[in-house]
């Protein structure tokens, strides 16, 4: 430790990186942004599920794989999972205070969301392209 008053750094250099990097509200904003998007996409998802109720597999594949339905499903999945990734992060930060546990939970959250999103997106694309 240097004695008080002998720091060769400028005041700006000392505070740089310690305060707002103009990204403090990013998490809050993205949670709201995805929430707004989730309203029409959830309604679309409910309509899509209703349209395949009771139909056989071939009909379900045809409906889910059609471009409009597949695009709406992709938007719903990506938006919802991004939203729940942000939401679960807040829950973890609120309730898990032990550093190691918190880190483990935050990592698990990201792994879970990435895997769920990628698996769902893959399935939708496979339904569309019929590979």
């Amino acid at each position, binding site marked *: 430790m240097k004695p008080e008053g002998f720091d060769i750094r400028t005041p700006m250099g000392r505070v740089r990186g310690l305060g707002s990097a103009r990204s403090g509200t990013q998490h809050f904003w993205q949670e*709201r942004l995805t*929430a*707004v998007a*989730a*309203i029409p996409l*959830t309604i679309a998802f*409910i309509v899509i599920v*209703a349209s395949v*109720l*009771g139909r056989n*597999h*071939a009909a*379900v*594949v045809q409906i*889910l794989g059609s471009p409009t339905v597949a695009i709406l*499903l992709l938007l719903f*999945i990506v938006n*919802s*999972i991004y939203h*729940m990734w942000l*939401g*679960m992060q807040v*829950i973890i930060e609120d309730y898990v*205070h*032990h*550093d190691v546990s918190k880190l483990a939970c935050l990592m698990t959250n990201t792994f879970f969301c990435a895997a*769920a999103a990628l*698996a*769902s997106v*893959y*399935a*939708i694309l*496979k*339904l569309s392209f019929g590979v």
Partner: protein
Amino acid sequence: MTGSPIPRPRPLSPHLQIYRLTLTMTMSIVHRITGMGLYLGALLVAWWLIAASSGPNAYAVVEGFFGSIIGRLVLFGYTWALIHHMLGGIRHLVWDTGHGFGANEREWLTRATILGSIFLTILLWTGGLLMVGR
């Protein structure tokens, strides 16, 4: 934060159990719980999509589960959680604009969320069961 040295005990804000439980407080908790339920529900959606893309046999397994009593209970819960979280989210978006904080308004919004979510869930399931014919 844990791990950092604390020179002396800091004053704490009163904990949750100090306050009388109000409807808006309960709904805030329910909003978080439904969010966590939907988090796990993403697995159901993923399973359904993967099964549909895998083929008729895999899809039959999913249909079998979703058609069973337990499956239907889970799906009914998922439907309610989805609608409730959506309506609760709309309520929070209204609050984000700075509106709806009055004593009557916030109670009204809160009641509308509960009743609306129950009504819409039953409506959707009635429609769905009529469509399937059971």
